[in-house]
C-alpha cells in the first residue's frame, strides 16, 4: 500500500503532540502506520476524548433517584419519568461545520443528535436549538455574513427536523459580536422509551456478527472530529471537503428501521457513526463490551471508488449505524433493512482479544487495543490563569442614558426581539404534542405514547458568563429552572453544551473551569443531575474568542395538564404579583 511515511510534520498535522506520539508507540510496541495514526488522531481529539475537559466534567452531579443511564456511560443519559417510562436527551454542538457551511453544518448537527437518541432505543419526540451569531444589523460585510449564517443555520435545522418529522419546539437565539465568524449551533433532542427498551452500545457476545447499515461511506467529512478540535482560521477554508451533506430522508428510514430492529430483540449492541465514523463506533463498542471487534473494509458499502482504508475509517458520512447482531438472527435483521430500503452489510465479528482489528480484503491494516483508543486517551490538566481574563465590568463606566431611549434600544435589539421568524420555519406541531407553542417560557409537550407531559428549555446568557463565568453559569441553570417552574413543571435533569475558546490559553481554561463549577453547584442545588452533554472548544476566529457560553438544556415534568401555564396576561382585573427582589 502507498501510505505516506510518518514524519514529525504528518504527526503535527494530525494534531498529535510528540508526547502523544510516543505514547502511541508505547501502546503498540511499534510505530503506527499512517492509517493507525489517523485512527489515534481522531479518537484522541478533544471532540472524541474530552482530553482537556474530562477532569472538569467529573465535577458534575450525575446521580440521582431518577437516573437510569448516567452521563458518559452511553450515547445519552436516560431519566425515569414514571410508570415504566423514561426519557433520553442530550445536547450537541455543530459550531465549526456551521461556520463553514451554515445550512449543511446545522442540518447534520440535528441529524447527529437525533441518532444519539434513537441509538439508545428511544423514539425521538422533540428538538430544541440554541444559536449564537454576530450582529446582523447594518450593511457591513460582517453583518451580511452574519445574516447569511443566521438564515442558513435556521433553514438547515428546519430542513432536517421538518423532513424527519420531529418537532422543533423551542430554543434561543442571541446576537453578539463575540460570535462574529464563529457562530454557535447547539441542538438538543429528547426521546422516550420504556425502561426495558434501553439499548447499549457494547459489542457483546464473542462471535456475534457486526452489521453496517445506512448511507454508503464517501469521502465527505474526512476527519471532521479533528477539524472541530482546532481554531477557525483562514486556513480552515482549505478544510472544505470536511463539509458533510445530510440526508434527513435516509435518517428517517434509519430511525424507523433501528427502532423496529431493537423491538425485534435481535440486537446485542448498537452505536451510531458520528464523529470519526467507523473508527469510533468499532473501538467504542469493543471497549464498552470488553471485547474486540474485527471488520473488513472491503465489505463496507461505499459511495466512491478507490477509497483507502484511511479514508474509509475516518469518513464522517452521515446516517450510518453499527449494529452488533445476536448470532443466528441475521436473517430477521436483513429483512428489516430490506423493508426500509437501506444499504447494509455484514462487515465483521466480535472477538475476544480486545483489539480493534481492521482488514481490507483479509489483509490487516489496523490493529490497536480498543481500550487504548476509547478510554486511554491522554488527559490534561490545563494551566489556568487570570492574566488575560476579560476586564471586569465597572458600572461606573456606564454612560447616563434616558431610560425611555434605553428601553427602546433594548426592545429593538435582535436578541430580545420576537423569534417568530425562526420558529415558524420549524414544524413545531408534528407528533401532536406541543401544547405550549414557541413564544412562551418553556416548551410544553404531551408525549402521547407515554401519557406524560414534559417541559424543556435551553438557556445561557453569555454576557453574564463573560463577566463572571461561575455566577453566569449558575444564572443559566437558575433561569432554565425558572422557565420550567413558570410553565408548571418540576425540573428533572440537565444536559449542557460547553462552548469555549482554545483551552491552551490559560484564561480560557480558567473560564471553563469556573463555569463548570458554577453549573455543578447550581445543578446540585436544584437536584437536577447532568445526564450528558458536549464540549466545544477552540471557538475562536480572527476576531477573537467567543464569550464563554455554557448552554444549559433542562427538562422538567408536569404532573397534571391543569398545571400548564403560559406567559401572557390572561384577563383584565387579574392581580399582578412581583416575586423576588
Amino acid at each position, binding site marked *: 500500500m502507498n501510505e505516506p511515511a510518518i514524519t514529525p510534520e504528518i504527526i503535527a498535522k494530525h494534531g498529535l503532540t510528540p508526547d502523544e506520539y510516543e505514547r502511541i508507540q508505547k501502546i503498540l510496541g511499534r510505530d503506527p502506520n499512517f492509517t493507525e495514526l489517523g485512527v489515534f488522531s481522531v479518537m484522541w481529539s478533544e471532540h472524541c476524548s474530552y482530553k482537556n475537559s474530562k477532569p472538569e466534567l467529573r465535577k458534575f452531579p450525575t446521580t440521582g433517584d431518577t437516573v437510569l443511564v448516567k452521563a458518559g456511560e452511553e450515547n445519552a443519559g436516560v431519566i425515569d419519568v414514571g410508570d415504566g417510562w423514561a426519557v433520553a436527551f442530550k445536547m450537541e454542538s455543530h459550531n465549526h461545520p456551521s461556520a463553514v*457551511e451554515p445550512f449543511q453544518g446545522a442540518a447534520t448537527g440535528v441529524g447527529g443528535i437525533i441518532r444519539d437518541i434513537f441509538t439508545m432505543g428511544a423514539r425521538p419526540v422533540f428538538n430544541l436549538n440554541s444559536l449564537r451569531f454576530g450582529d446582523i444589523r447594518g450593511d457591513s460585510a460582517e453583518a451580511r455574513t452574519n445574516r447569511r449564517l443566521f438564515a442558513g443555520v435556521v433553514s438547515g435545522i428546519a430542513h432536517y427536523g421538518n423532513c424527519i418529522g420531529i418537532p422543533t419546539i423551542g430554543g434561543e437565539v442571541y446576537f453578539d459580536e463575540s460570535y462574529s465568524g464563529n457562530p454557535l449551533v447547539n441542538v438538543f433532542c429528547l426521546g422516550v422509551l420504556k425502561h426495558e427498551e434501553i439499548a447499549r452500545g457494547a459489542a457483546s457476545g464473542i462471535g456475534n456478527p457486526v452489521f453496517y447499515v445506512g448511507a454508503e461511506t464517501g469521502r*465527505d467529512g474526512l476527519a471532521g472530529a479533528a477539524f472541530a478540535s482546532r481554531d477557525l482560521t483562514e486556513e480552515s477554508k482549505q478544510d472544505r471537503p470536511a*463539509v458533510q*451533506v445530510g*440526508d434527513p*430522508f435516509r435518517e428517517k428510514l434509519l430511525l424507523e428501521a433501528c427502532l423496529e430492529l431493537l423491538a425485534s430483540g435481535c440486537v446485542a449492541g448498537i452505536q451510531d457513526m458520528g464523529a470519526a465514523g467507523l473508527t469510533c463506533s468499532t473501538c467504542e463498542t469493543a471497549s464498552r463490551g470488553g471485547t474486540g471487534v474485527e471488520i473488513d473494509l472491503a465489505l463496507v458499502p461505499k459511495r466512491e471508488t478507490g477509497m483507502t482504508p484511511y479514508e474509509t475509517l475516518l469518513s464522517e458520512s452521515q446516517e450510518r449505524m453499527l449494529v452488533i447482531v445476536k448470532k443466528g438472527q441475521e436473517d430477521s435483521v436483513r429483512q428489516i433493512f430490506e423493508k426500509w430500503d437501506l444499504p447494509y452489510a455484514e462487515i465483521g465479528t466480535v472477538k475476544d482479544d480486545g483489539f480493534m482489528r481492521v482488514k481490507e480484503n483479509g489483509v490487516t491494516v489496523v490493529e490497536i487495543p480498543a481500550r487504548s483508543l476509547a478510554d486511554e486517551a491522554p488527559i490534561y490538566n490545563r494551566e489556568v490563569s487570570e492574566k488575560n481574563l476579560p476586564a471586569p465590568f465597572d458600572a461606573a463606566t456606564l454612560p447616563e442614558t434616558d431610560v425611555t431611549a434605553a428601553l427602546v434600544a433594548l426592545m429593538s435589539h435582535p436578541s430580545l426581539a420576537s423569534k417568530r421568524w425562526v420558529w415558524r420555519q420549524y414544524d413545531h406541531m408534528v407528533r401532536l404534542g406541543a401544547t405550549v407553542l414557541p413564544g412562551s417560557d418553556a416548551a410544553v409537550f404531551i408525549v402521547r405514547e407515554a401519557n406524560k407531559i414534559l417541559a424543556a428549555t435551553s438557556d445561557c446568557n453569555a454576557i453574564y458568563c463573560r463577566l463572571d463565568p461561575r455566577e453566569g453559569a449558575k444564572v443559566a441553570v437558575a433561569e432554565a429552572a425558572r422557565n420550567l417552574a413558570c410553565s408548571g413543571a418540576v425540573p428533572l435533569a440537565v444536559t449542557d453544551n460547553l462552548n469555549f475558546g482554545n483551552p491552551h490559553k490559560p484564561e480560557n481554561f480558567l473560564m471553563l473551569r469556573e463555569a463548570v463549577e458554577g453549573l455543578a453547584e447550581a445543578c446540585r442545588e436544584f437536584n437536577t443531575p447532568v445526564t450528558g452533554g458536549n464540549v466545544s472548544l477552540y471557538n475562536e476566529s480572527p476576531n477573537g474568542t467567543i464569550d464563554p457560553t455554557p448552554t444549559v438544556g433542562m427538562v422538567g415534568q408536569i404532573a397534571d395538564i391543569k398545571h400548564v401555564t403560559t406567559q401572557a396576561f390572561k384577563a383584565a382585573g387579574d392581580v399582578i404579583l412581583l416575586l423576588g427582589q
Partner: protein
Amino acid sequence: MKAIVTVMPKPSVLDPQGAATAEAMKHLGLESVGRVRVGKSIEIELPGEPNEEKLHEIARDLLSNPVIEDYALEIVR
C-alpha cells in the same frame, strides 16, 4: 441575450436527491442507469451586452455554494 448557469453538486459530495431519483428511475424500468446528480439550472435574461466577469462573480457567490457545488456559465446569444 441570456445567460444559463448550471450548478451541480461537486462529484465527491453526497447528493441524496440524485440517489433517490436514480432509485425511482430503476423502478420505472431504466435498469441500467448509472449515477444521477440533481442540480440547478438558472436562466437569466439580459437586455444588454453581458458583463461576463460580473456574471461569473454572481454565479460563484450567489448562485452556487463553492463549498459543495460547481457551476458552469454559458452565454446564449
